[in-house]
């Protein structure tokens, strides 16, 4: 009985067995990239909001400090979303009749709150605390990006655990002097490694990577 397969098929078989390793490995790499991609993390994608509120206008243009609206950022885990009253502090005078501010005025008049869509949304089993980060020299823009250049708010970073852990392991690469925490125009100096190491010591920054630091 003659051979069904030609001798050359042996090589094909060998090559394909060998190649499968690369194909599987390649698929895994693609999967990892997809998992880190904005398609999954929704980074850089602006969300639909009830009002076209522009951080670019308010922070970049008017130079309002972050804490004017996000009042509890230094005291609480939650930075705080301003009550309608905060908007009306100015907008009862400025653009008082602007049609795109109608939802704000309606909210103020009826007492029904505005419903914003959460942009930076951590999973429910993660407990992040704003206050300790800003108190230890982590700047707003380090995580939130250049909000003064964001007409519509989006999430700059992946907010995935490896991104958190990266800073928790190497805080010296990211910390800045406490007085610069709320500055949106802050750029890390060329000697960040040296400055960072000094600040980590001065602020007694701990490299906390225990699970219960964030998960409980």
């Amino acid at each position: 009985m003659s051979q069904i397969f030609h001798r050359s098929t042996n090589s094909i078989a060998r090559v394909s067995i060998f190649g499968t390793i690369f194909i599987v490995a390649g698929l895994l790499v693609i999967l990892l990239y997809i998992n880190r991609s904005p398609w999954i993390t929704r980074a850089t994608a602006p969300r639909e909001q009830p009002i076209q509120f522009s951080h670019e206008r308010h922070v970049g243009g008017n130079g309002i400090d972050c804490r004017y609206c996000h009042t509890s950022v230094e005291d609480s885990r939650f930075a705080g979303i301003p009550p309608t009253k905060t908007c009306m502090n100015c907008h009862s005078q400025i653009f008082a009749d602007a049609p795109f501010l109608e939802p704000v005025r309606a909210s103020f008049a009826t007492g029904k709150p505005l419903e914003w869509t959460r942009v930076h949304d951590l999973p429910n089993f993660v407990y992040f605390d704003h206050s300790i980060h800003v108190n230890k020299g982590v700047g707003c823009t380090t995580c939130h990006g250049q909000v003064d250049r964001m007409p519509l708010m989006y999430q700059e970073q992946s907010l995935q655990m490896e991104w958190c852990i990266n800073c928790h392991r190497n805080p010296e690469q990211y910390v800045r002097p406490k007085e610069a925490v709320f500055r949106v125009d802050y750029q890390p100096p060329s000697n960040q490694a040296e400055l960072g190491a000094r600040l980590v010591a001065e602020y007694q920054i701990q490299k906390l990577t225990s699970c219960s630091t964030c998960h409980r």
Partner: protein
Amino acid sequence: MTTGKAFWRTLDELADDPSFRERLYNEFPSEVEAISDPTTRRTFLKLMGASLALAGVTACTRQPEEKIVPYVRQPEELVLGKPLFFATAMSLGGVATGLLVESHEGRPTKIEGNPLHPGSLGAADVFNQSAALSLYDPDRAKTITNLGEIRPWAEFLAMMRATLISQKPLQGVGIRILTEAVNSPTLAAQIQDVLSRFPSAKWHQWDPTSRQHTMLGARQAFGEFVEAQYKFENADVILSLDGDFLGLAAGALRYAREFAERRRPDDAAHMNRLYALETMPSFTGAKADHRLPLKPSEIEVVARQIAAALGVGSASAPSGDAQKFVAAAAKDLGEHRGRSLVVAGESQPPAVHALAHAMNQALGNVGATVIYTEPVEIAPVDQVASIRELTADMDAGRVDLLVIIGGNPVFTAPADVPFAQALAKVQNRVRLGLYEDETSAFCQWQIPQVHFLEEWSDARAFDGTVSIVQPLIAPLYGGRSAHEVLAAMSDRQEQTPHDLVREHWAAKEKQAATSPDFEARWRRWLHDGLMADSAFTPRTVSLAATATAASPVEAAAGGYEISYRLDPSILDGRFANNGWLQETPKPITKLTWDNAVILSPATAEKLRVDQRPAMRGGEHGEILTRLIELKLGNRTVRGPVFAIPGHPDDCVTVHLGYGRQRGGHIADGAGFNAFALRASNGMAYGRGLQMTETGEGYSLACTQYHHLLEGRGIVRAISRDEFVRDPKAMHEGFEAPPRTLTLYPEYKYDGYKWGMAIDVNACTGCNACIVGCVAENNIAVIGKDQVLRGREMHWLRLDTYFAGHETNPETYFQPMPCMQCENAPCEVVCPVGATVHSHEGLNDMVYNRCVGTRYCSNNCPYKVRRFNYLLYQDFTTPSTMLGRNPDVTVRSRGVMEKCTYCVQRINRAKIDSEKQSRRIEDGEIKTACQQTCPTDAIIFGDLNDPNSRVARLQKEERNYAVLAELNTRPRTTYLGVVRNVNPELGE
């Protein structure tokens, strides 16, 4: 007492029956059907393959979009994300406990004791702890109804006005108000106001949780209603006449603290000694150095014998077991005149209370260990007479308007008082209640009552201290308070309850409610949760001739005796719809979700009823027992029997409050109704009980058969004299391996090193820690069926151990949370790294990593890990979601969980201290169990700080680690028990 004494947990274990041992150790008992699933190996593999593939896919879902809803006008003092604490008070049975309530953005989530309040001292009991769940109970009454139809409040007011106008010329002869025991000065003033407007109207009271026998006993002793307050800190020798002053008593939290303070073995010379006569084993009996189990009627007999030996009254000579006890107790009391104390309990008739007062007088204790004040209840009455009179009036058609404020009299009235039938003859029946319950079914008008966390009111504590009850949240279901309903009966202008309470106190203080001076005081009262110096001042009393009169003797009826108690979890049934309380294992019996006919093993044998753990393999949560018919007079009920060690023979104990018909989804169908037996001529106990076996079986969910001892030194105890001789004697025979005996490198803890010490000697077994833990950590309620399978989710359990003979054993309670081992057996077996060691020594449990292999739980020698076999958490009911602690993850199905040392509290304190660049101070962090503990038995802190309380306690000689021989090096250690045994009585 000798070391190495034999401890045991269940009667079967004590009997050491080989078939019981076999059942326990056989994981696949032969009586269980063989696994006869038709699934073949092939389908099994297919399914497993598919599940594995799909399990991966589920991880790829994106998070659903979330909304942030800010305030429109944010309250000034509120910092978003930070809880606020408000002081308020909770009343039960006419006595208030001061509380601090944690509020997250307006949602009350956690209740703690108010450290400033004399009745709390920072502690809270199970009922206080569980109140947050009752607030959000979706079964609460939600609308005002008339004959089942929804009606507006205005219509109710119109009805009320019309009725009152027609009653006006009759002086209100047809008006009746039925309340529970009232300790709210404002409410009492309102009632008096209505009564002065309608002089012929009548106010009745009925409250099964109030201290009727205590009050009537005081009246018998002194000829008037007075309140006895105890000073346990001054008492060297205490005699309890079935008086559970550590459990269900006014001021129990404070008494437990004072009692425990006098039992610190490091001050061995000042340890008090407690003698207890009791029927149903209680907290107090368990802590007693000498306990005598007696039938309910015998307690009075033996009490009189002790009294006679002290020269109070006369009595027959003691006999049998009691002889030595009476002589020793009388001698001990007599030697400690002015430093002794006799306390009688609610489950004994008034005559025993009167006798206790007479004994305290004779012993010179008045002014030293007991003081008398005016009663906390504002107008105490003989409630049985009160409800009987009301029933007679209703039956005779003399009542046109009955307003029932709270309570559930249709369910709780004495069985021989036909309250429900008579109620139907009343023209206008108005009911204010939290639930649409049995009583609502008989009333035309049902008005939803506000929960105490939703109302303005005021309340007196056990010593008379007044607290303003302030609301934490607007009424969830538009409820109305008692103040509003009574205001509707007055001729004054309609007022809010806030204004009513405020004006009442302004008038009392002779100030205008609007004056700035009063405003300042009012704010101070609200802030502190009490009015300073409002406690009653002691008054003098003189014994009446009737003080030592015996209880009326019934004709000897034969048969058994039956003792009635409020259920330790649900009281008279008012908390029956509270899952946290239903699932908390009851003290001593460790039953959940049921009451039982509790009796002694010998009596059970006499009745030929037996109980045994079901053969299911696993955790033995199911006890198969027998239903028995109880017949008292012409009344019968059926209930399951449950034999426990230490219960006297020839009598049974039943707990009231179960057998609800219209109590809500959780309450209905659980247990049997013991109120149906209790008649007005035997409110404390009944005689002449007949019991017949029905031949039917019943399953009780009991957690006592879990995790047996197997001879390990889990509890250690010693007598005081031996302790003084050799403080380490209790550890004889138990050795921990040397620290070098491990393959793993030592962990280093540079910062904090958390640890806990639990003083078993101080623990009274009150369960408050368990419910506090449930409330703090969002622990799920799983229901009776799952407890039967041994799956209860409590992170902290309270083990009960016995030592000695089953007729009268010593009882020990041991709280058992996660030990946070340094060499943790759970950590090394987790295949996915879901439980790992933290840099501060906690065994972190990472829910999002857990895949549910349960290897960790299997490898945990302390059995403190809990697994979500099913989706136990309620993710859908909106009201229950409001009550959760936002700082703790709500766990889903398939995830292991366990005690975290309240890591959310640790993190909160760490963040606060880091922001101020300081170390956490000792005592700054209190775990939930520690915070609520009335006796300070649980101490948490930093072991790296040699001066911290926990570090000092762990160096004490009584300190030991449970299962130290396994080299797990637990972080939670225990302090052994020292009993102050009277050498004359010995063991």
